[in-house]
């Protein structure tokens, strides 16, 4: 067995175990971390297919950004695991049916002669110094320029909408204008009051003088 085959089987084993644990883990934080492991292992598979740009992008986007925010939310939620697991058997028949239908569909597609899985061939061999990144960039910005730009616009719209939703005025917002803070001078915050340490007691002082005399 070649080195690549060994790596492939190890990665596949880890991927399957991780994917299974995503569904079965009791604690949602553990489930999210198993999902991270699954993404990372899948990117290893893409590296084996010599798609290094896609592999690195998967780690960069999903592992490095999306799942971090996901974990944030899952950790902050105070989830009662016991309550979540109530009624598992009650919902089992419906969930089982859905799962069975999905498995049947996948088997039908993959085993049909039209899919022609047996006739699937390996891609053409690439030269050792061929740059995956350069080729992808060239394709994206020449052949697929329009779909690429359309996808960018869709993402931009989603981003603007997300910001727009959170930008409404809130009464309990404690926003501080930093420019105002910087401009503050001593006189805006502190009032200097001249307080004499001792009350001027001119009369009593003169009394003492008289007594001494």
């Amino acid at each position, binding site marked *: 067995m070649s*080195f690549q085959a060994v790596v492939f089987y190890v990665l596949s084993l880890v991927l399957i175990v991780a994917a299974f644990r995503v569904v079965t883990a009791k*604690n949602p*934080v*553990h489930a999210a*971390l198993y999902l*991270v492991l699954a993404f990372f292992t899948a990117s290893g598979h893409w590296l084996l297919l010599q798609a*290094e*740009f896609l592999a*690195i*992008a998967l*780690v*960069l986007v999903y*592992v*490095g*950004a999306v799942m*971090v*925010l996901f*974990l*944030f939310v899952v*950790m*902050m939620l105070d989830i009662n695991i016991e309550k979540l697991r109530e009624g598992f058997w009650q919902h089992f028949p419906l969930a089982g049916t859905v799962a069975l239908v999905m498995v049947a569909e996948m088997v039908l597609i993959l085993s049909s002669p039209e899919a022609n899985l047996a006739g699937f061939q390996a891609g053409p061999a690439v030269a050792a110094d061929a*740059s*995956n*990144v*350069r080729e992808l960039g060239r394709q994206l910005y020449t052949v697929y320029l329009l779909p690429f730009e359309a996808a960018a616009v869709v993402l931009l719209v989603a981003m603007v909408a997300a910001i727009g939703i959170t930008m409404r005025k809130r009464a309990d917002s404690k926003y*501080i204008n*930093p420019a105002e803070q910087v401009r503050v001078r001593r006189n805006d915050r502190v009032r200097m009051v001249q307080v004499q340490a001792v009350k001027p007691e001119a009369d009593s002082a003169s009394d003492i003088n008289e007594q001494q005399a």
Partner: protein
Amino acid sequence: MELLQNLLGTEAGLAVWTLLKILAIVAPLMIGVAYLTLAERKVIGYMQIRIGPNRVGPKGLLQPMADGLKLLLKEIILPTRSSKGLFLIAPVLSIMPALAAWAVIPFTDSLVLANIDASLLFIMAITSMGVYGVIVAGWAGNSKYSFLGALRSSAQIVSYEISMGFALVGVLMVSGSLNLVDIVNQQGHGIGGGSALSWNWLPLFPLFLVYLISGVAETNRAPFDVAEGESEIVAGFHVEYSGMAFAVFFLAEYANMILVSALTAIMFMGGWLSPFPASWGALGASGVIWLLVKMSLVLFMFLWFRATFPRYRYDQIMRLGWKIFIPLSLVWVLVLGAWMMSPLSLWN
């Protein structure tokens, strides 16, 4: 290498050879980390008119060994009701990216473990994994203080990663490559025959500043070290750790500092290129020594910052990251694009 391949067969020989190369990178790195801790205490000591550690060995030179030995001998305490597996795996998650990123760092144009085309992307992807160590450590310890520290610290790391990424977009625009070796070689052309004036830091000065400051924030160093604001939340995400598990977090922080300084030297300060024109003979020759000098310079600035600046308030950190650095780097990327298309372009 040929000797090994003859002894062990082609594939096994290659594997052993690669392992030896990895060892040749990681061992000096770990020694560097140990002595960076000593350098930090000494530099800050002198800046505060103290002497710093001077008892263990001549001039205190064996202090890191003593510290390491002390931490090795301490007990690792597992908090009750913690998630044990995750608690123990978090330090590993935190040091792994700091070491793995060195696989693609070039020391000279031929001295590099893996000269891959997408090395810049690889570094960004691997270093973005570092935040998991922080989050998992904060959560698994089952402590409110460490969890708060982890949330602060990871929010900060995620925010500054974006401006760091945009700063690097500028670098890859002018070099037209994601390969770190090509990025350094590109800086060797231009004004002064490849001297310090032709490096990226001058034409990309705003991005250089953004990258340097984001690098400080990314490694959770002062003045961005709210993750361990002692006066507010004890010590941040690793408050539940003791002994060697704590030491691994410590090592990861310093290894990350060295990594960021190496990246700054490679992206903006010409890597292994000499700061003098090539016509100056031995002084103008490029070599790994220049990379080490530049890294030491950046590392010294890290220590200098810590001795100089008071800690930022948390909302100020977030404001700097999101409202100043990201727009600044975005605008500079646009300016750079226009500059490169104009007849004044320096990069043809």
